[in-house]
């Protein structure tokens, strides 16, 4: 029971401190789970990161479910997952009415455009850092380029998951 409570607190903290997408969140999770709590060792953490990236869904959720299950079974998984989602819901629940009221203001709109461009910078940087991590040789580069091209060419007609699965099939043949 104590473990479940501690899981809840840890993952609520992770949920509260996680900004800017899953890849950014990984060091944060590592800090809390490996360094602070000693719940997992580094090798297990690396395994979680690999699994979180190769399974569907947000990385923070995947990490929470996996760690929770490791430490306290299905209940732990459910509690950790709930805990990591809860800060989002609370903050947005408080913020949404304010945003709706302030959204018309010229100042907010100017600020918002800057923030959108900031998100674009984050995405562009994610392309670089993620690409550097997974693209090791020419076939990888070709596959990533082909996936990008297919998405651009068949924007609305081709579901992105089709491109990803096709990448997997190519991987079966090539790797």
């Amino acid at each position, binding site marked *: 029971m104590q473990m479940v409570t501690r899981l809840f607190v840890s993952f609520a903290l992770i949920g509260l401190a996680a900004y800017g997408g899953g890849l950014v969140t990984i060091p944060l999770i590592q800090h809390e789970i490996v360094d602070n709590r000693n719940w997992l060792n580094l090798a297990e953490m690396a395994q979680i990161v690999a699994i979180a990236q190769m399974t569907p869904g*947000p990385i923070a959720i995947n990490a929470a479910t996996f760690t929770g299950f490791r430490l306290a079974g299905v209940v732990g998984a459910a509690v950790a997952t709930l805990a990591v989602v809860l800060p989002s819901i609370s*903050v947005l629940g408080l913020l949404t009415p304010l945003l709706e009221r302030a959204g018309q203001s010229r100042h907010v*709109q100017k600020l*918002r455009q800057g923030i959108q461009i900031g998100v674009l910078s984050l995405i562009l940087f994610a392309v670089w850092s993620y690409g550097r991590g997974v693209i090791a040789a020419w076939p990888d580069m070709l596959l990533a380029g082909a996936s990008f091209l297919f998405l651009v060419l068949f924007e609305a007609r081709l579901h992105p998951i089709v491109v990803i699965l096709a990448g997997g*099939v190519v991987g079966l043949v*090539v790797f």
Partner: protein
Amino acid sequence: MTSTRHQEQPSGAPKRERGPLAKLDDGAKNPVSLAQLFWVFFRIGLFTLGGGLAMATVMRHELVLRRRWIEDAEFMAQMSTATVVPGAIAVNMAYLQGRRLRGRAGAAAAILGTVLPSFCVILLLAWIGLPYFKHPRVAAFLKGCVVAVAGQLAFAGFTFGKRLLCDGRNIVVCLAGLTVVGVLPVHPVWAILVAGGLGYWICRGDTPSDRLDDRG
């Protein structure tokens, strides 16, 4: 406010979105059921590898291109809110969309839909699947998928960039953000704060997203 929204488009703006997206499925006119919300976000949760920013591509496909629940510009505005607020971007997006279309219950349905696929997949994997995960064929398939996700991320950058980098000042802001996230040893959220501040200072703030807010 303005009835001639389309005529205000700067000539450089992409024209493609205009035709198919002219008619929006507005929550008020054509209510989306909770089951539908759950199902769409379940698909988004299930069909995304690589975390929140890669999810932008899948989400845009499901919400903007396929179902027309939201316009491109407003989608990007929501993406920025979802990124600045704590928590997983996908969960934040689910909340914002769900709440916009069906209030609090909609937000709950959308979040449940986003989280459930990861939860089930991870549980299955942790329970029985780990040995299979390391099988060479499975590993090769997953590696192909993970590499293709890099293309998907690049595509998310492409769609955002096409709309936002139409102005020299915006490009300056973007480069400043890139410098912060790529060069300086600080938390990436600073890139968003710096870009937000700089954008406030130098941008004119009249991208298509602003006009969308005038819809009233």
